[in-house]
């Protein structure tokens, strides 16, 4: 077939596709709201696109002019971007994710999660006990000035817990910047063969355990425990989950099994990103509790501990039971 005949025969289809792409492709939501559309019906677009692809193949094969091939190629690329774009995020889906999918994802990776917990909890307990037995060991972790700062933060005489005079909002920003950055970095550094999260978990465990042990020993224990018990439920579990996701990524790199290494990494990255989304939300909640609840000084110990216990039960129950009633998706 000569080029002129080819164009005459198919021109109308190309124009219809072009008009559809111009009018309806950019935003499905807007397209759905617009009921007055009289051009190519949405449901016919995939078929029209496939025909266009075939015509492009023919035009290339038959050596039609570069002009025509370029025009068809551009239409095809725009069509491809519409056909294969990822689905739009939906709010209902986000709700489902946090209630059910996130705990399922954590349980699905229970091996690395337990490993991350061990990497975090064992150094924590070890350094706590070590400081109880030999108090001077705290100075291997912190210098004198840092020790004094921690002691000042949890001075029983202060009206507010865990800080000097900064306002709640200022500390909220501080917690968000610090803890969430640490969480995300713990996951991402898993790409270094899992060494990043292992190191981050162990170092954090040692530090937290050491500081807690020292404060307990030096008579600052009451304000310290009252301060941390609330937000620790979200913060510590989130850090462990981020570490577990990072370990998973590192394992995918070291031992991809029967998959190609790159496929294992892509898979691990995708799962890790979902987990990071959950970690992000948990740390947001933790920062909120830490800034606006944990610091309140006048609430008696039993109030703090019962709320803290409830939060721990909530988080662990969520991770243990969340999404159990759903079939594997």
């Amino acid at each position: 077939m000569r080029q002129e005949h080819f164009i005459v025969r198919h021109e109308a289809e190309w124009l219809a596709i072009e008009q559809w792409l111009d009018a309806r492709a950019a935003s499905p939501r807007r397209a759905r709201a617009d009921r007055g559309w009289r051009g190519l019906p949405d449901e016919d677009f995939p078929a029209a696109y496939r025909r266009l692809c075939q015509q492009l193949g023919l035009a290339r094969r038959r050596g039609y002019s570069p002009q025509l091939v370029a025009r068809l190629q551009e239409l095809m690329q725009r069509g491809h971007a519409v056909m294969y774009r990822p689905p739009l995020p939906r709010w209902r889906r986000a709700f489902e994710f946090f209630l059910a999918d996130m705990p399922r994802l954590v349980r699905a990776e229970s091996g690395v999660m337990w490993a991350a917990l061990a990497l975090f909890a064992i150094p924590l307990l070890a350094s706590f006990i070590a400081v109880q037995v030999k108090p001077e060991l705290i100075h291997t972790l912190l210098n004198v000035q840092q020790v004094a700062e921690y002691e000042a933060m949890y001075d029983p005489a202060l009206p507010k817990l865990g800080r000097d005079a900064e306002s709640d909002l200022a500390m909220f920003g501080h917690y968000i910047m610090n803890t969430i950055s640490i969480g995300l970095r713990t996951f991402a550094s898993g790409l270094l063969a899992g060494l990043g999260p292992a190191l981050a978990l162990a170092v954090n465990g040692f530090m937290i355990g050491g500081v807690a042990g020292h404060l307990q020993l030096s008579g600052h224990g009451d304000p310290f425990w009252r301060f941390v018990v609330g937000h620790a439920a979200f913060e510590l579990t989130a850090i462990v989950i981020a570490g577990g996701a990072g370990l998973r990524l590192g394992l995918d790199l070291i031992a991809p099994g029967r998959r190609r290494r790159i496929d294992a990494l892509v898979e691990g990255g995708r799962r890790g990103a979902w987990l990071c989304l959950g970690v992000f939300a948990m740390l947001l909640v933790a920062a909120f509790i830490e800034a606006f609840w944990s610091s309140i000084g006048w609430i008696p110990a039993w109030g703090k501990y019962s709320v803290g216990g409830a939060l721990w039960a909530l988080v662990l129950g969520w991770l243990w039971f969340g999404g159990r009633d759903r079939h594997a998706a």
Partner: protein
Amino acid sequence: MLDTVREVHTPEGVALRLPAAGPIPRALAWAIDFGIRLGLLMAASMVLGVMGEAGMGLYLVLLFAVFWLYPIICEGLFDGQTPGKRALDLRVVSSDGAPVGWLAACVRNLMRTVDMLPFGYACGLVSGLVDPWGRRLGDLVAGTMVVHVPKNRRLPVMEGDGVMAPALPLRPAEQQAIIAFAERAPRLTPERQVELADIAAPATGAQGGEGVRRLAGIAHWLLGKR
């Protein structure tokens, strides 16, 4: 490493060409984005500075957002283009040529943490130089790549009065060469035009100035004028 165009075959059986972007344009795009982020923070610090302690908290929240969320949100919302990438005509796409999704945008930007190691995106640079399509580690894990957005700008074609069909059928590469000649001709000396047109004498059937005139006519014919 020499052929940086990735050719993907779509499920419909046609080839999609993805011209991978190298480290220099990507670094420039990053620098533009960095400037925008810095500007945002400066503007915010002026406003929030007068609010005292609360302002400090909001500033830190903003700092977090600018550091972690800015690239994710830009790439998710604007079809894989942060303002810097838009300025340099770059785009993040999935490695099969489809638009990048939110999840992939999250992964590739979270992984910046590793690409930045040990300093100045050194890991990302090494990975980008080793990988045939210039992907940094984050791109590898997210299954994405950064491509040049194709520019469909046609140069003005040389003037010509007549339109004429070629004397013999031309292959696509030959057609392209003739159109390219017509686009470049206005910037060439007449002697050079004649020299080049003489090579195409079998198609035009003429030599010298007449050959140039006919070649322009063929180019117009190929571009669809009748």
